[in-house]
């Protein structure tokens, strides 16, 4: 089973040179740490910045410079600042190449639920609905099962959904899976030491297994 850092590390392999990328809160934020240094990519913060840099040193903290998770950040050379309407114009207009975000559930047709649990305090969807409705390529970082062992990869989402037919790929602690355009999770890679049988047992939706499934690598 992968740690959160390993999930982030595996997702970083999906990043291509020249991409503009939006990273969600949580594991997706960690992906930034593992993007190969020889790739030129630009990270978007949907509150109005292209070009997120590392967290600041204590003496460089600026309350007027935060990311969408409200953390203090820095800017890399060549950054651009803009307002929220412009930021979502970029997202809605398909200019962001890759969106990486977390999920509570994903269905076998690519629906995602990640904003609301009935009966619990609802904090809001933030920018998630705009992102999943518009991004060309959406990768989900998530645990394969809930804490009580229920699969989070399902035939249909049981929770209120955030967007329909949008998830392209999932990297969980157990596997890398692609969502088939015809429906179903296509198993692409296993986490080191995790068997196809275990993944099958822990996947609620239709799992598609074609040929030998390799263990994932991180280089």
């Amino acid at each position, binding site marked *: 089973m992968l740690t959160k850092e390993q999930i982030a590390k595996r997702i970083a392999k999906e990043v291509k040179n020249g991409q503009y990328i939006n990273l969600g809160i949580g594991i997706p934020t960690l992906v930034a740490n593992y993007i190969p240094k020889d790739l030129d990519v630009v990270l978007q*913060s*949907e*509150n*109005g*910045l292209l070009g997120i840099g*590392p*967290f*600041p*040193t*204590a003496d460089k*903290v*600026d*309350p*007027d*410079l*935060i*990311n969408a*998770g*409200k*953390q*203090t*950040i820095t800017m890399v050379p060549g950054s651009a*600042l*803009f*307002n*929220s*309407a412009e*930021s*979502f*114009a970029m*997202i*809605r207009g398909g200019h962001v190449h890759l969106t990486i975000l977390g999920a509570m559930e994903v269905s076998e047709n690519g*629906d995602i639920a990640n904003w609301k649990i009935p009966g619990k*305090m*609802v*904090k*809001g*969807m*933030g*920018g*998630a*609905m*705009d992102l999943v*409705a*518009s991004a060309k390529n959406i990768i989900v970082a998530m645990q394969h099962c809930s804490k009580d062992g229920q699969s989070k990869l399902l035939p249909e989402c049981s929770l*209120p*959904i*955030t*967007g*329909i037919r949008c998830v392209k790929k999932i990297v969980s602690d157990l596997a890398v899976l692609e969502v088939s355009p015809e429906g179903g999770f296509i198993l692409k890679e296993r986490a080191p030491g995790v068997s196809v049988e275990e993944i099958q047992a822990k996947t609620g939706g239709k799992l598609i297994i074609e040929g030998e499934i390799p263990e994932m690598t991180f280089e």
Partner: protein
Amino acid sequence: MINKTVKNAMEAVADIPGNCMLMMGGFGLSGIPENCIQALLAKNISGLTIVSNNAGVDDFGIGLLLKKRMVKKMISSYVGENAEFERQLLSGELEVDLIPQGTLAERVRAGGAGIPAFFTPAGVGTEVAEGKEIREFEGKLYLMERWLRADFSIVKAWKGDTSGNLIFKGTARNFNPMMAAAGKICIAEVEELVQPGELDPNQIHTPGIYVQRIFQGENYEKRIEQRTVTQ
């Protein structure tokens, strides 16, 4: 140039009545109109509907207005980072209308730009789409969203001139420019107020036409929610 200067926050918000619709700029606690929030707190009004991306924290920002029970309804994309908010919501004292962040930004932009409705893909197939018109364009589904306008909008800028031209700083810009345009009366508080001609016309983020009142604020705390540093 038209001079829109008022003396201070108290004068700026003096005629804001209860039960009105108010927009307030900011993302989290960044770029919020701290001075006007304090001035509103000193007024005896309630029943406000506030359009703001977030709702502050317990002891800062819009959280202060919530604590004093001045707010009837929040129109936001992400809220509930304070306990009082949650208590009022669960007890039914407070209404909340949750809107996808990009839709919120665009609805406010549409309000200022005279566009009563537009189509967006955000929320198609979700409960956000309930009761809304769905239409297909070039093979993709979109839902129709309406503009948002307010009786007053309150924004916070970095620099401004007396004719209302504004320049924001960093990510404190966020919702402020759209809200400036979508308020019937826009109040701008700025860290530094200068004379017309001191700001480069090519660097203005919000042209003065949108701003009706402006003053130089004071004692900005600029509280940080998530101080995150590297070694």
